[in-house]
């Protein structure tokens, strides 16, 4: 088995090339099928997103396999191969595995830790399964890659903190309020970013949405969108008594809420906490309001600061994730190495012989009246049966068929065989040499 990766991503290729190389939904089926029938390519998966196009393949020979995939991309998209050569990366052996695991775990993403890639990869894999372009190895590899990504999600905090303004707002709201569904949010002004933040809050359970705007029409539109209520712009401060989260983004040139006003409002609402997000520039809400107890005022720079910290935290968590990826790749290599035929044949023979001996001993104890001759003939009879029976799997293992490794895996599982670790360790260096030679 030789796993190779060929592809390009946002780091190696500009959008002009990525869009040419991308496989859109309509053509993906044709592409997968073409590759499936290409010589020397046993299995393939095509992953095509806006940031990356990658082909994972199990090939007979890494370098000729890579060439044939490059030729395929070139002819499929009608791009000269020289243009591709500059943008494409090719990995084989351990590097290919490492790359696939890192991509799946979102360690290679533009924003590290963003979870979309895992879903995209699952889709690509499902598509390949439907088209029957994968078999044992890529299937096992994909399942391992997905489970590694999940392990990283649960064991590290790589995806925990928000890295966009609107998600950061939701994350902060969740740390101020325990039950968002019972809270009221007010949109003052109707900027795009404010709308997005409100949308995320609603997705996280907020039900009561108030909208106020200088032009009433826009307010009506927005409140209809959120199933909310409109508030007259002149009267919005009164409604603040019942509002827990404020998202402000008006174009007003001066402060529209002052400290004294909020102070009074807080008394009226018995100091119930308020979260105020001011994403307007210039700022619309007196920044000194943050000095009041139980009020949390964030302006656009504060939110940006939160995101910067979160991205730093993510890169710290990414180090832990890299370690997990390394471990999982090692485990996969070990499994790969265990698929050599000779120790499996030995183990199969030993197992059959052990079973035969055990059963003979059990029976002979009860049949003590048998003479030596009879015992001998029972021995040879049972040996003959066993040998005939295991002749077929052993012959299959010894054959140089293209699917020999699959056979090893199946025989090992069917007969519950465990080959000794020494044999497993012998294999990887051999693999490396292969890579170098070719």
């Amino acid at each position, binding site marked *: 088995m030789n796993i190779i990766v060929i592809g390009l991503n946002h780091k190696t290729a500009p959008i002009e090339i990525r869009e040419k190389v991308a496989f859109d939904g309509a053509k993906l089926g044709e592409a997968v099928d073409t590759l499936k029938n290409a010589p020397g390519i046993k299995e393939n998966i095509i992953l095509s997103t806006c940031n990356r196009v990658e082909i994972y393949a199990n090939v007979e020979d890494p370098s000729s396999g890579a060439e044939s995939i490059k030729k395929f991309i070139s002819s499929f998209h009608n791009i000269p191969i020289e243009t591709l050569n500059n943008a494409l990366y090719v990995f084989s052996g351990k590097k290919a595995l490492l790359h696939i695991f890192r991509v799946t775990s979102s360690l290679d993403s533009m924003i590290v830790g963003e979870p979309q890639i895992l879903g995209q990869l699952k889709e690509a894999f499902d598509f390949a399964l439907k088209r029957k372009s994968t078999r044992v190895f890529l299937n096992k590899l994909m399942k391992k890659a997905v489970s590694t990504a999940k392990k990283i999600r*649960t*064991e*590290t*905090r790589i995806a*925990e*903190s928000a890295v966009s303004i609107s998600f950061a707002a939701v994350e*902060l709201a*969740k*740390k*101020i*309020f*325990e*039950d968002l569904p019972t809270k009221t949010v007010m949109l003052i002004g109707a900027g795009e970013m404010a709308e997005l933040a409100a949308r995320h809050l609603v997705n996280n359970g907020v039900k009561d949405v108030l909208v106020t705007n200088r032009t009433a029409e826009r307010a009506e539109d927005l409140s209809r969108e959120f199933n909310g209520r409109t508030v007259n712009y002149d009267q919005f401060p009164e409604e603040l008594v019942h509002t827990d989260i404020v998202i402000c983004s008006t174009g007003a040139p001066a402060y529209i809420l002052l400290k004294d006003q909020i102070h009074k409002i807080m*008394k009226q609402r*018995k*100091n*119930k*906490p308020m979260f105020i997000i001011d994403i307007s520039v210039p700022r619309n809400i007196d920044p000194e309001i*943050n000095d009041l*107890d*139980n009020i*949390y005022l*964030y302006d656009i720079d*504060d939110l940006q*600061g*939160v995101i910067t*910290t979160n991205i730093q*935290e993510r890169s710290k968590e990414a180090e832990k994730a890299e370690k997990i990826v390394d471990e999982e790749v090692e485990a996969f290599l070990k499994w790969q190495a265990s698929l050599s035929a000779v120790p499996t044949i030995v183990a199969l023979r030993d197992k059959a012989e052990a079973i035969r001996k055990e059963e003979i001993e059990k029976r002979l104890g009860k049949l003590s009246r048998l003479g030596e001759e009879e015992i001998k003939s029972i021995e040879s009879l049972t040996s003959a049966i066993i040998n005939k029976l295991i002749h077929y799997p052993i012959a299959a293992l010894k054959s140089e068929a293209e699917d020999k490794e699959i056979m090893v895996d199946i025989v090992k599982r069917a007969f519950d065989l465990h080959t000794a670790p020494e044999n497993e360790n012998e294999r990887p260096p051999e693999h490396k040499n292969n890579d170098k030679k070719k």
Partner: protein
Amino acid sequence: MQIEINVLLFELALTFYFIATISGVIWLFKGRKATSRTIIALTVVGFAFHTANIAVRYIKGGHLPVTNMHEAASFFSWCIVLLLIYHEYRFKLGLLSSFILPIVFASILASSFFPREITALRPVLKSNWFSVHVLFAFIGYAAFAMACGIGIMYLIQERYLKSKHPSGIFQRLPSLQALDEINYHLITFGFPLLTLAIITGAVWANSTWGGFWSWDPKEIWSSVSWLVYIVILHLRLKVGWRGKKTAILSIIGFVIIICTFYGVNLLSEGSHTFK
């Protein structure tokens, strides 16, 4: 032989609480999610040994084992763990054990420095009021200890939000609302118990010494802490204080409880001093 068993049980409880506390503190700084369950499991095992230790002393001594400094401090930490385990299962507040276990461990460690023999009940304590009075007081104290730990968590989380640099343990601490509400619930739970402890104490004193109140140092300090908590409740219900200010007050309240508990016993003479 039985003394050895209860000492062994005590040491086991102490050891498990110690490991749980250390893991709790380490968890604060570098937390993998799975550790939470390990810490609770360690605490529960420690609690089981601790309960057995108290049961053995109860059977051997024939009374609630709270009649010397060792027993009292140990029982105090037992009550806190009881409430901690309940809150862990009921509310699942992130990092709660990391903040409460140090209080538990400090108390049981303090208890380990005092003589551990099981003593017969002094005649003056032979009263039905004894167990009732002590139970109310200790469970009330434990509620205030929890309120203090949660108050500290609130202040840290509030600091993160106000400073606008949420990092470190921000993600893993609960929301301000949850912390504030549970802090309040604990005080409304502890306050009536403290009140009942003071009332039963007074009634008991009256039947023993013929006077409800004798200005014993413990009585004075208890009324001070009682006043602090009634002030917290008043400010909260009538004035509308909440959040940071009530969190600080709940920490002050517990510091006074600690003074009441250790200070009075170690530094002064009176009917509450262990002999």
